[in-house]
């Protein structure tokens, strides 16, 4: 009886927190939409509010549904999801308004998928049971991209599959593979963790090699496909995910060291072999001699950062358009230029908070699979944000991943939404 009262109290508090935070987020998004409207047209124009209004409706629906069916969820996740997607809408209206309608639809679809994966599942068992099927399906689609892949912008790596019957809609299989891979790895480590942990504890260096062999094979297959496709970002991301979960499963930091070394060696190899890698590493190491040519993008990004100052230029008052494809890979530079250090640091804190809550869900997970899954998803979010933010600020070479939830891109948004949904589910289970 006492426990139930306590539960109800927690639930009420959850709802209050979520509503309060969402209120702040809604205010932020609409103030920025208004500012954009004034900056662009010197008056309030409905067209700048269409996206935010649809977003608001979707968020309210999500808030009500989660309160109703997932009262024990983590109350921070939905406001974070709302802030990032809402900010993304304003930013896309500012940077590439012709993509805005499409992205708004994707936010609707993504939120629906998030709610579905947060509310519908009774348990995570099917995911575990059919893990090889899922992974094989993912790999097949990825392999199909090798043959049928296109690039909607007409040039660059052909990482997209056209979706039949939907016209100009494309899907990026490596995004889907991200989700499938994290499920697969979670269930794999869940099954093998005892053995892995024991081998690690017994002191035999690389003792569990026989157990790891299939895993390494699977990973190698992913790598080959991705390197073949030259999707540097996804390859790096998968490898980081794999290393992090391996470390969780074995508790042995030597895997991290050797994995990082492997990553470095792979990078050096790739630097020598692949032009695209060499170009990005050169542009990262010293962009200035090539500032008008091969390192144009990163140099323009640094100019945007420098122009932001403390408080930023204000929405639509900076010049982020000088950065090529600013609306996908370089939104972070645009945010820094127009919202300044204040906005950019705030955004970093949002991702920091997301990572913190994700790992908290992992720590308090009841089942081992849940722990791996939530940790894996969190690692994906964190690493992806770190890779692109590091790339934009010249801390790391550019890897060409999107900034989760904010960058333009339907596949990325859909998959990220599903992963948030899974985190919501897992948080209400723990």
């Amino acid at each position, binding site marked *: 009886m006492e426990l139930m009262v306590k539960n109800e109290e927690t639930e009420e508090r959850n709802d209050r927190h979520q509503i309060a935070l969402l209120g702040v987020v809604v205010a932020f998004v609409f103030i920025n939409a208004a500012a954009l409207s004034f900056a662009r047209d010197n008056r309030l124009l409905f067209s700048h509010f269409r996206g935010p209004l649809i977003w608001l409706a979707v968020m309210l629906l999500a808030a009500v549904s989660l309160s109703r069916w997932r009262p024990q969820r983590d109350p921070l996740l939905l406001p974070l999801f709302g802030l990032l997607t809402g900010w993304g809408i304003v930013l896309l209206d500012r940077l590439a308004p012709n993509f805005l309608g499409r992205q708004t639809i994707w936010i609707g679809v993504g939120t629906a998928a998030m709610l579905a994966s947060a509310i519908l599942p009774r348990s995570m068992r099917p995911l575990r049971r059919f893990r090889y099927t899922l992974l094989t399906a993912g790999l097949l689609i990825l392999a199909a991209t090798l043959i049928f892949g296109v690039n909607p912008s007409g040039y660059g790596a052909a990482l997209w599959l056209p979706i039949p019957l939907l016209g100009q809609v494309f899907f990026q299989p490596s995004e889907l593979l991200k989700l499938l891979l994290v499920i697969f790895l979670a269930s794999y480590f869940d099954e093998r963790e005892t053995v892995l942990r024991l081998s690690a504890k017994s002191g035999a260096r690389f003792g569990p090699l026989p157990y790891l062999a299939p895993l390494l094979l699977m990973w190698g297959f992913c790598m080959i496909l991705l390197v073949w496709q030259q999707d540097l970002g996804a390859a790096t991301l998968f490898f980081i995910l794999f290393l992090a979960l391996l470390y969780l499963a074995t508790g042995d930091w030597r895997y991290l060291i050797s994995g990082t070394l492997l990553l470095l060696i792979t990078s050096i190899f790739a630097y020598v072999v692949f032009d695209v890698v060499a170009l990005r590493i050169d542009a990262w190491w010293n962009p200035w001699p090539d500032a008008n040519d091969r390192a144009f993008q990163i140099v323009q990004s640094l*100019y945007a950062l420098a122009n932001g100052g403390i408080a930023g230029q204000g929405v639509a008052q900076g*010049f982020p358009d000088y950065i090529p494809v600013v609306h996908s890979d370089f939104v972070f530079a645009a945010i820094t230029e127009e919202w300044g250090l204040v906005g950019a640091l705030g955004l970093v804190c949002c991702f920091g908070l997301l990572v913190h809550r994700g790992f908290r869900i992992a720590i308090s997970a009841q089942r081992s699979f849940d722990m791996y899954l939530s940790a894996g998803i969190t690692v994906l979010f964190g690493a992806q944000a770190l890779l692109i933010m590091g790339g934009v600020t010249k801390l790391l070479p550019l890897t060409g991943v999107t900034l989760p939830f904010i960058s333009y891109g339907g596949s990325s948004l859909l998959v990220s939404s599903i992963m948030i949904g899974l985190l919501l589910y897992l948080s209400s289970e723990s």
Partner: protein
Amino acid sequence: MSEPSSKKLSDIRHQRPSEQILALSRAMLLGFLLICLSLVYWGSLRADEMQVRDDNPRSVEAELRIHRGQILDRTGRILAETVGAADRPIRQYPYPNSGPAVGYYSFRHGTSGIEKSYDRLLRGETLDLWSELIRSSLHRPLQGHDLQTTLDAEAQTKAEALLGSHTGAVVLLSAEDAEVIAMSSHPGYDPNQLDAEFDRLATAEDAPLLNRAIQGAYQPGLILQPFILAAAIDEGLIRLSDEVADANQLIFVNDAPLQCAAEPKEPVTWQEVLKSRCPAPLAELGDLLGRQKLETLFTAFGFSSMPDIPLDSNDLNVDPVDQPSMASIGQDTLTISPLQAGLAWLALTQGGLLQTPRLVNAVQDSEDNWQPVAYGPPSSVRAVSQSSARRVVSAMGTRNDVIEFSSLVLSGPEGNRNSWYLGLTPADSPRYAVVIIVESESNLSIAEQMGRQLLQAAIEIAP
């Protein structure tokens, strides 16, 4: 042996790897912290250096956002204004012959003329520290201020038309305040077409971008005669009614023979020498005056320093007088610009005082209120005495209410001749002075007609 091992196994099975999760969490948060530091580094520590790099398009954008002020003529007509969309402004010059005083503004090629010397005012970089802080933190573009020149658009157009296809320069001044009413230099340029034609303009041999009215360095020749005579009268060397022997004697400058422009009428007095522009007596007078007197005279008439006017000028290298006889007929080391000649002409005809030329009447302050531009008083020392000056001026005589003096001047070793013309009108109470040089033109009447018509036009524009 088997018992502890199985115990260990169950221990491990129930062990949550929360330590590892915490380690991963810390590693990632450390990563985010590094991003924050990197942001501070680029956004603050190295921001200034990034902002001023040549290839940063933001400096272009910031420049384009500035609403540059207008340049007006003395009656408020617009000589230069910025029109077009806020992010693609165009600098427009409604009078394509606004001339070298207005100059040009080009984003790519910089500025010249008033556009250059009043750049900060026109851009609006005149705010005090506090207003500038507010402006820059609100990211408001600079709002330029307007200025009003002493130029008259109509007189300017007339001067340009009169100079036409001749190479040379025209300066029209107000007699009272030495206000520059028109200034032309040909060949010139249309500031509206500057971007399109800049490469040609910058490399053309006849130097269209050069402002001959100020930057031109011409042999003064016999145009010096009235000044020398006034000085000689002051020194007690001559009187205008004194007779002169062998006035029409030939003298040679670099083997080129020089003689009176017209046969002097008998009896040949100094007045007749002046009217007939005879070089030989003047050369003798130069010897009598001597080096030092000549140099003092040149300095007093402003020939040894650049006039104080906010336009591009050359560094003036004044060489000491070499041969006094050559110096007094303007064929020694001294070269002067048309503006210098005009100001000296004004000094002579206005009682011997050298004035500071005026080009800008008023400027807007940071609240857009008009503030008059203050000019100093004329030189305190008279170049020549008022009475000698008056005598020489009246000896020149008037023609159609115009006091004038003109001369063909040997220029350069090839025997080229430039036409100089100095004019002043109306004769009894002068209001306008004009100085004209036409390069390589041995028909003096061309410059004379030009000068008379311009003075006539000036009187008609503002009777």
